């Protein structure tokens, strides 16, 4: 075990000795102080995009009106990600407490958790925990209740505005931005939507204070992160590690000795080849991740990997905007044609251009991020695309 790869016990650490103790203490503090602590901690969203959490909360707090919402995004669908399920299984109370703190700060009385349909089996246990929360909140005189909404098997609903559409009983098609959720979210009301892990981080910042929290991670990537490790590794699973570690150290620890590439951030993230392990930092200053780390060894065909991703995007594209609907399909058909020899090698350049066009013209993060894995795989493993 190397020194740099420290395992942390913040997210999954034990509950405090008394039920909802941190929540009880925190709700007595002024909102501005709480926001300041979160700002000082340097916390950035844990869903993948990495927006500063304090700013999101502040913008929503400053919106007029008393109908606001807190939404917990538990639509964990990114290939290779399974950490939110573990958090919701092990420490659901930390998530609910984080949501309640958010409700107090922004002035919301209602919180929703949008749980992906694939995790329907967790519902009975979660409902029991929500009862515990709602009862405790009442005892603590907190005017905030939590409800669960289920998804039904649509990756795109992890995109925040698509998630609101789904909660509103519509097709999960992303909205135009702006307006952002902080202004117009669920039912067009100001809404804070955060990832499951983000809410736990907020609670832990409130418990240990920003100074202690900041000791974890690097300047640009504060705190710890829960990683979902899978693929060609003898120790696949869920690990809480400090942010800002070099990929090389990660591979040393988790690889099987024959690691060819690591896909950081799931299908919508980046594929890092062996020669770049040394110079790659996992974190916001390097390659960011929502937690997905998929390891491939040299027995894997990167063509098959890319083809699998493109299949995924083609199916999960909501079909609303042309760049994504047609682009995903053409990229898949394109690499198939090059592989068959029906198209020249130079055609790959054209496909790269197409993916770059998708990056700037697609309506939401799905279509915009296909280029991440596409170019990083095609650029680094060109020979595998052809032969």
């Amino acid at each position, binding site marked *: 075990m190397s020194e740099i790869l420290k395992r942390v016990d913040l997210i999954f650490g034990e509950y405090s000795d008394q039920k909802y103790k941190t929540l009880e203490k925190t709700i007595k503090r002024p909102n501005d102080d709480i926001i300041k602590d979160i700002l000082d901690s340097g916390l950035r969203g844990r869903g993948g995009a990495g927006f500063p959490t304090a700013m999101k909360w502040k913008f929503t707090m400053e919106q007029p009106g008393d109908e606001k919402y807190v939404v917990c995004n538990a639509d*964990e*669908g*990114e*290939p*290779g*990600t*399974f950490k939110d*399920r573990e958090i919701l299984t092990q420490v659901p109370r930390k998530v609910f407490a984080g949501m309640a703190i958010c409700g107090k700060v922004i002035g919301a009385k209602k919180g929703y958790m949008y749980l*992906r*349909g*694939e*995790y*329907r*089996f967790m519902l009975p246990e979660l409902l029991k925990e929500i009862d515990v929360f709602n009862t405790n909140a009442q005892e603590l005189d907190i005017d905030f209740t939590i409800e669960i*909404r*289920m*998804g*039904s*098997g*649509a*990756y795109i609903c992890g995109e925040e505005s698509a998630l609101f559409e*789904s*909660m*509103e*009983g*519509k*097709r*999960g*098609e992303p909205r135009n931005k702006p307006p952002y959720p902080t202004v117009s979210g669920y*039912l067009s009301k100001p809404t804070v939507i955060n990832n499951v892990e983000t809410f736990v981080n907020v609670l832990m910042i409130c418990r240990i204070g920003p100074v202690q929290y900041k000791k974890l991670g690097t300047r640009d990537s504060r705190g710890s992160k829960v990683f*979902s*490790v*899978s*693929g*060609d590794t003898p120790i*696949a*699973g*869920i690990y809480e590690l400090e942010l800002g570690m070099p990929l090389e150290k990660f591979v040393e620890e988790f690889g099987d000795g024959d690691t060819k590439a690591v*896909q950081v951030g799931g*299908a919508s993230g980046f594929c890092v080849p062996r020669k770049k392990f040394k110079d790659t930092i996992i974190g916001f200053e390097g390659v960011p991740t929502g937690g997905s780390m*998929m390891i491939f060894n040299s027995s*894997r065909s990167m063509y*098959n*990997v890319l083809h*699998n*991703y493109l*299949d*995924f995007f083609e*199916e*999960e594209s*909501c079909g609303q905007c042309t760049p994504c609907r047609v682009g995903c399909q053409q990229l898949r058909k394109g690499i198939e044609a090059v592989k068959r020899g029906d198209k020249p090698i130079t055609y790959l350049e054209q496909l790269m251009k197409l993916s770059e066009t998708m990056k700037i013209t697609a309506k939401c993060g799905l279509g915009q991020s296909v280029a991440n894995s596409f170019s990083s795989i095609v650029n680094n493993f060109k020979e595998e695309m052809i032969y």
Partner: protein
Amino acid sequence: MAANNNNNNLINELVEKYGRDRTSLMPILQGVVEQNNFISDLNMTEIAKELDLSAAQVFGTATFYSFLDTIPRGRFVIRVCKTITCDMHGKKMIIQTLENLLKIKVGETTQDKKFTLLETNCLGWCHKGPSLLINNDVYSELTAEKVHELIAEYMHK
């Protein structure tokens, strides 16, 4: 006619439970699938009437989501994860085993309407692939033997 009445009862129950607002549409549709394994055209028009929506709006929502089936499915819907890590760890073999056991292809339902075999995208069990769902229940770290046992168990349900 009897089937119609049953359907109406189910929709009524769900509407009473979740309300008539459009925000109740997903829970209602999910409730229908839970009960009937799919949402019929008749269900959709009935829901539309109750929620004061057009049938097209209900149809639009229902057909968007891969778990809201709008064609008849078996009592047990098997969804095998086909995303990368499960694929790497033997998803193809799992599908073949299931196809042989159930004597159907992916996308089909057995004649006794007991099983439907489907593929699905990432189930979030990448560290324990290959994995599948049978209705709401997850089975992971699958092998051919495990699949045999599993199907034998469900045959008797």
